[in-house]
């Protein structure tokens, strides 16, 4: 704990690259080709970890970095807008819910995943000018978001349990 700032920067870099790698790996194994946008979203468990262990500010920075990097990696500006739209809404909901008593990290994760999809669809509606997407496509993504959100929430919970043990010893 000698240099807290350097430690924070290093940890942020580590977590950002972890999110990007998760995103890249998921891309190679699409859960289904027929429903675009359905993915496990393991990057979200990293963000959850950061939200619970590092705080709101750091999580916000991580989310922004991920959006920015997705632009650079995929050389597509639209990809950044979708990532940003989903990320902002999802993080806002997760911050609010994580302060509600009686909601566990799994519930926060599920709702975060759902609102990531909501944000993306809202951006898509704006960019493509097709409001019908809101009622036709969003419900499908909401249900898939609940399922994948619970899964990533369980992952985040397990990771945090073990990391707490490690930190406690160190």
């Amino acid at each position: 704990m000698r240099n807290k700032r350097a430690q924070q920067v290093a940890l942020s870099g580590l977590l950002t690259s972890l999110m990007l790698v998760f995103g890249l790996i998921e891309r190679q194994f699409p859960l289904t080709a027929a429903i675009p946008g359905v993915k496990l979203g393991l990057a979200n468990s990293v963000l959850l970890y950061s939200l619970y262990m590092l705080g709101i500010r750091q999580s916000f920075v991580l989310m922004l970095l991920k959006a920015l990097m997705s632009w650079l990696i995929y050389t597509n500006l639209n990809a950044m807008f979708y990532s940003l739209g989903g990320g902002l809404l999802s993080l806002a909901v997760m911050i609010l819910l994580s302060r509600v008593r009686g909601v566990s990290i799994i519930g926060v994760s599920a709702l975060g995943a759902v609102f990531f999809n909501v944000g993306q669809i809202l951006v898509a509606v704006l960019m493509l000018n097709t409001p019908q997407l809101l009622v036709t496509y969003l419900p499908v993504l909401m249900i898939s978001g609940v399922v994948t959100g619970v899964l990533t929430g369980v992952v985040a919970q397990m990771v945090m349990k073990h990391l707490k043990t490690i930190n406690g010893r160190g």
Partner: protein
Amino acid sequence: MLKRKDWLLIVLVIAVAAAMLGVSRLLPKTDLSTKTADVTLAPDAIEYVATPAPEATEAPEATQAPQATQTPEATEAPQATEASKATQAPAQEAAMVGPMPPKQAERVRGYVVLTVGGRQYGEPIPMDRDKVITLKQDDGKVNKVHITPETVYMEYSTCENQDCVGQGEVHVDTYQNRILGTYIICLPNNVSIEMVPAGD
């Protein structure tokens, strides 16, 4: 593990999703008269796919050969039907020599609305014959939309995830069973295709 409030939230989300799905069934069909072009479609954007064999009366199977084996040969026909009929006439005479432009469907069963970056490209395109529409954007993004008398699908896209190609075809008879319904969407390239079934 999951607490009671978690379950409550999850049930709530699923209920909202179910309600939205219900609403989507009640949505009125897209009104074609409201779909007008924001950007004119370049006449050379449409390419007619030639049928491999002439309209043979003795071998009707020939026209139903699988797409993959065909060599899509372009007949540079402008969009206007009057003009395309004119170019069709000499081709029909030479039918025994080369491939023919596709036969026009007896009844147009649907129209295709193409949107790029929120702006509609051209008027709604009738699904009257086998053709490929190429959408080129200034920044080098290209999408090719294949239209047949009964189906629409994304044939080619420069996007990185190829989701739009993977979304398959919209068929005028079975689009209700598709998750995306009448839509094919390419998010990275900002392209959306909507099939509007023609009224009976």
